[in-house]
């Protein structure tokens, strides 16, 4: 019963969102059935479409996990986007600048460098939160913009591919590329492992327990002898490392270089996925597959049904609205899920 209750709100939210999306398509003179049919058959039934779906789902799953860790530790990490870009760029640099390594060493090295650079961005936000009391929502949003601008500077300046017209780095070496096993991208398998890992950390380890205690009640955590500030910083570092790792996987597995135009919006979908999954790391994976499918097949839907792919932004926004606002539990008289405060106010730290 508990399991049913956890799934029913997100499912109703999805149905409502697709319904509203259909009405909007009709008002624009398109056929919603055809659009949705094209969307889902492209995303989930062809070999090529599935590969694309899982490819798109990978960074979404990992950035979703990065947001989940934050939510569990009482931090609302809007900065997965910036952390991801930082990791993606660092991994691209390590992928093309370092040569002559065997694949077995080069790939992990790039992934670790990506995670380190992602965690650096997370560290800034975490330290400012813990030691200066600045709310993480503001710092992470500002860092998103700063990192993006910095990445544009680097990929259009010191790290630019010679002779290129647009801002991008040189392609990464073959030894840094990650491929697929039996049609499943290795990156996606990694994201599944990470989800289990995050679940295990919160279920079985004292680190996870400390994060959750700090997230639920700082005073109680302090009274129990948990170093609240250090754990806040550590949680943001973990968020950043995960998101940076996600960016690195995207670079090594899909993009093959760094280009500022790519990677847009991945971190924000991560927020929606994390809230849709109600901060449960294992539920992030199906959410990411659904979102990845819709993102991957959006352009096809535009081609076959003439619906602009921005409808997916809108549908996802409506999903988020219905999942987080306590409307569904009111209308359907479900036992109300506790809508406790997951985030903290400005002053408290």
């Amino acid at each position, binding site marked *: 019963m508990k399991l049913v209750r956890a799934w029913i709100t997100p499912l109703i939210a999805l149905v409502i969102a697709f319904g509203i999306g259909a009405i*909007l398509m009709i008002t624009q003179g398109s056929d919603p059935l055809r659009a949705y049919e094209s969307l889902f058959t492209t995303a989930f039934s062809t070999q090529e479409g599935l590969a694309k779906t899982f490819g798109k789902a990978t960074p979404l799953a990992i950035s979703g996990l990065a947001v989940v860790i934050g939510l569990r530790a009482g931090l*609302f990490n*809007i900065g997965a986007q910036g952390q991801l870009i930082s990791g993606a760029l660092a991994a691209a640099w390590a992928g093309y600048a370092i040569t002559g390594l065997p694949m077995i060493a080069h790939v992990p090295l790039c992934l670790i460098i990506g995670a380190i650079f992602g965690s650096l961005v997370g560290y800034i936000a975490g330290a*400012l939160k813990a030691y*200066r*009391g*600045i709310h993480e*929502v*503001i*710092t992470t*949003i*500002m*860092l998103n*913009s*700063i990192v993006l*601008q*910095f990445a*544009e*500077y680097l990929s*259009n*300046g010191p790290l630019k591919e010679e002779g290129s017209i647009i801002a991008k780095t040189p392609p990464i070496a073959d030894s840094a590329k990650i491929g697929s096993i039996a049609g499943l991208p290795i990156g996606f398998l990694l994201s599944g492992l990470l989800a289990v890992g995050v679940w295990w950390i919160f279920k079985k380890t004292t680190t996870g327990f400390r994060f959750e205690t700090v997230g639920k009640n700082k005073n109680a955590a302090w009274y129990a002898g948990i170093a609240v500030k250090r754990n806040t910083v550590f949680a943001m570092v973990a968020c950043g490392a995960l998101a940076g790792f996600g960016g690195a996987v995207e670079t090594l597995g899909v993009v093959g270089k760094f280009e500022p135009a790519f990677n847009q919006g991945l971190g*924000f979908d991560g*927020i*929606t996925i994390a*809230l849709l999954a109600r901060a449960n790391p294992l539920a992030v994976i199906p959410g990411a597959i659904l979102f990845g499918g819709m993102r991957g097949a959006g352009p096809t839907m535009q081609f076959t049904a003439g619906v*602009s792919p*921005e*409808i997916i*932004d*809108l*549908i*996802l*926004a*409506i999903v*988020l*609205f219905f999942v*987080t*606002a*306590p*409307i569904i539990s009111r209308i359907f008289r479900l036992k109300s899920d506790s*809508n*406790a*405060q*997951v*985030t*903290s*106010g*400005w*002053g408290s730290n």
Partner: protein
Amino acid sequence: MLRLQAVGAVINMMTTALRSRKSLYFYIVVIAIAFAYSVNSVSTVAVAASSITFGLPLAMAAMVGIMCERTGVVNIGIEGTLLTSAFFGFFVAALSQNLIWGLLAAIASGAVTGLLLALLTVSWKMDQIIAGTIVNILATGLTSFFYKQGYSLPAIFPRWSIPGLSDIPFLGRVFFQSGPITYFGLILIFVLYVAMYHTAWGLRTRAIGEYPSSAETSGISVKKFKYINVVIAGAFGGLTGAYLTLELVGSFDRGFSAGKGFTALAIMIFGRWNPIGALLAAIFFGFAQALANQLMIDGLVAIPGPFINMLPYVLTIVVLAFSAGKVRGPAAAGQPYEREQA
């Protein structure tokens, strides 16, 4: 005799200045501007005028935050309000070919975003940060889906030179040759300041932000007050969106508000939740941006474009790192208000 009085007045002024930090800062700024003006009057006027142009939308957006937080509602959704109102302002003005309709549509749509935030946070008692994020993401989804290329405004709001005042050197160009929303916005900021500290409404608003149950005990309807203030704040945010699209830029694009709603929150904190403080903080932000631009134009420094674009965001973090901890916001901001059961 008269001369002696004048000398006495000057000495008096200087000692007061030294005693009060605020007036000391004021004189430092005046002297700095006078010095810069004597060295290069053209660039100084340009920087000062741009400081107001860049700073005003931030100041107005910060007022949205101040009004909400003073009644205990944290508003992360200012960005969404700006985006939504700029969208409706631009497209209504472009379709009707009438700027006034655009202005009204912007204000109304801003108020609707305020109403949504009030519904989520006051009636449904949702986590306020997540509620604001929902406003932002919904605004992004709506405006990017309904966005259409190829529309343009009939014009933008023209500048009004105020007769007499606009001829004053420096001040005339900086303050008295602006568009109508600029004048209106500046006046509203002062009105908000007076209302916040010198009227019953302001006292009640601040009481709710600090100690809602005590305010309720003294007969104030906390819920009604929160609704009214958050909706008015949304309308003010709508005016800001109208300023951006109908007076400043004259166009609209996806992601048009570019983080101004979040910078505004930093300005609110930097200005200590005080309208005049926030106005000065916003002008400081505007000044930093204007100075960097002018240095580029004059060819004095070669800063790569991305670093110029980064400036407001870096400044936001630096300013918060130094001012946070020292300032304290309304005590009840961020907490849902639950009436105690008898």
